[in-house]
């Protein structure tokens, strides 16, 4: 669509049939002037060359020819004069020579908005293969006219060490995004919507997505189920996990609590344990060795409690409570299981 409009605009400007050979040169290469040795003003100036947006609405207005400024005129490589639309960047190169000598430019033109249509980007100095220095000025077209419009790159006066260089204004044509009315006949009154993009058939993709999602979900469910089952089984089969569950409802000081922990030790060792046979527990479950002192204290306290009569009871206080010991043992047991 954009190329179509641009072609229309170009056809109107140049008065050539659209269906001919491409009239647009590929590169901007208009050299407008040779350097002039006359002295000129000492300030860089930007004469307002652009027409007001209202004025530019005149359809297909032919641009006025470049105004030759008085004074030394720089050699300029101009951008293509026609066929521009919003967003295009127009590059202008100014040869920094006065009377055949390369000159310095102490101050570059400021970047910023130039009238309604253009914005100047930060200028820079380039050196070509022959060692000549060029001032490169990039202007971006930042507005779209409603009809084909002439827009001028501004004239400049560049103050150099060797004098003033004049850069004349350079008119270019700016095309609208779309004409208001292209044909006005038949069904061609209004703009047609863009052709709908062809819809890709997503059914197989969706099917695959659903399949993999289902597989992934099943896998996650299975893993979660296995994890829950393992925890459930551990809580019922691991001796100290079982003891801990039973101890939650028993008081620490009840004989049953102590007996529950004794049975857990017995299950863990595979035999009924007493203080003299504790080594069997550590041979079979060496992971509990770090708690050996606590376990031995528990057995000593238990022996005092169940077999030693009341005289030996005070040693009970030094031992961990059955629940605390069961908790420590269950945690080691769980780590060891996983």
């Amino acid at each position: 669509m954009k190329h179509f409009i641009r072609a229309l605009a170009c056809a109107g400007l140049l008065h050539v049939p659209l269906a001919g050979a491409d009239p647009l040169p590929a590169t901007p290469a208009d050299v407008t002037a040779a350097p002039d040795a006359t002295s000129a003003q000492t300030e860089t100036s930007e004469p307002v060359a652009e027409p007001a947006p209202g004025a530019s609405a005149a359809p297909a207005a032919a641009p006025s020819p470049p105004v030759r400024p008085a004074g030394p005129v720089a050699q300029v490589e101009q951008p293509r004069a026609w066929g521009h639309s919003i967003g295009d960047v127009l590059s202008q190169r100014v040869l920094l020579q006065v009377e055949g000598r390369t000159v310095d430019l102490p101050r570059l033109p400021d970047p910023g908005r130039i009238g309604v249509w253009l914005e100047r980007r930060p200028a820079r100095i380039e050196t070509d293969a022959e060692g000549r220095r060029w001032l490169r000025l990039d202007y971006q077209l930042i507005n779209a006219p409603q009809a084909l419009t002439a827009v001028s790159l501004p004239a400049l006066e560049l103050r150099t060490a060797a004098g003033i260089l004049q850069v004349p204004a350079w008119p270019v044509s700016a095309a609208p995004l779309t004409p208001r009315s292209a044909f006005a006949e038949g069904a061609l009154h209004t703009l047609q919507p863009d052709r709908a993009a062809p819809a890709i058939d997503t059914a197989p993709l969706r099917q695959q997505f659903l399949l993999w999602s289902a597989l992934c979900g099943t896998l996650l469910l299975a893993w979660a189920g296995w994890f829950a089952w393992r925890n459930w089984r551990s809580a019922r089969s691991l001796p100290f996990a079982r003891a801990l569950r039973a101890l939650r409802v028993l008081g620490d000081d009840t004989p049953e609590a102590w007996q529950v922990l004794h049975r857990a030790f017995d299950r863990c060792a595979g035999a009924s344990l007493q203080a003299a046979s504790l080594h069997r527990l550590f041979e079979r479950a060496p992971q509990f060795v770090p708690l050996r002192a606590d376990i031995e204290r528990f057995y000593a306290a238990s022996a005092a409690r169940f077999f030693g009569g009341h005289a030996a009871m005070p040693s009970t206080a030094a031992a961990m409570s059955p629940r605390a010991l069961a908790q420590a043992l269950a945690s080691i047991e769980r780590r060891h299981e996983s």
Partner: protein
Amino acid sequence: MNREEHLQDWREAALRIESEVRKAVIGQDGIVRLINVALFARGHVLLEGDVGVGKTTVLRAFARAIGGDFERVEGTVDLMPNDLVYHTYVDGDGKPRIEPGPLLRHGERLTTFFFNEINRARPQVQSLLLRAMAERSVSAFNREYRFPHMTVFADRNKVEKEETFELASAARDRFMFELRMETPREPSVRRALVFDTAFHDVDALIDTVAPGGVDAFQLNAIAAHIQRSVSASEALERYVMDLWDASQNPAAFDIRIEGVDMKRLILAGASPRGMSAMLRAARVVAWLDGRTHLLPDDVRAILPSTLGHRVFFTPVYEMRRAQIADALIAQIIDKVATPR
């Protein structure tokens, strides 16, 4: 001196006896400890073992350490009960004489009666001995002879089976312990037994044992005192009752032995006399350990020696007694839980 101090003194004496005997018998610490327990629990001991492992030596050493009179009888197939009670001979004047036999000869001073190879003696002899062991008395010459301080040690050779009379279950039940004495396995002990000349002359070896560690005639009183001073808690009573039940019905305690139908294994479990002997021995173990209360470990320490020969198997399993009894006792110790 109060009761506790007495107990403490006797305990030290008991431990001294043990250390004295260990001078003469090396590598048999477990056996020495159990014989010492039997002495202070006033129980009789049946020793079983290979030929020449030191059964006689250990008994002689104990006899010397505790003092009192020692008598020894060799079991033979022609030994008759009367031979223990008296013997007859014709004296130098041609007159028939009757003298008290080995059992009566020492009267109440008899403390150690050693019956060597008891399974070679006829059942009639064993019966006489059973009464002497159970009641510490025999009737002879129209009167009753008492030997209240006697401890019977019998020895059974397990190698030979010919011309032997296996002890009846009632006879075995009267022994507090049946101890199996094995050849020491520790290399240093084995080397010493072979190369150390001190172990070659048994008489000289026995002489190194200091006699009279304790007054042998006080042992009954000491034993009674020990039994009174060591208490058993309710939990321990439950444990012993469970052990008893397990000896009668092991299947109820989930006791399993490979290749054995547990429901058909037991003909008779431990007897009440056996269980009371076990408790007496356990109390002595606790006392030797310096405690006045029983722990399950005390019972477990003497369980194999007291229970192993008191559980009787059905004939189909009796031939494998040694193997099954060991496994059964080990399983009872492992499966009967305490405190409960």
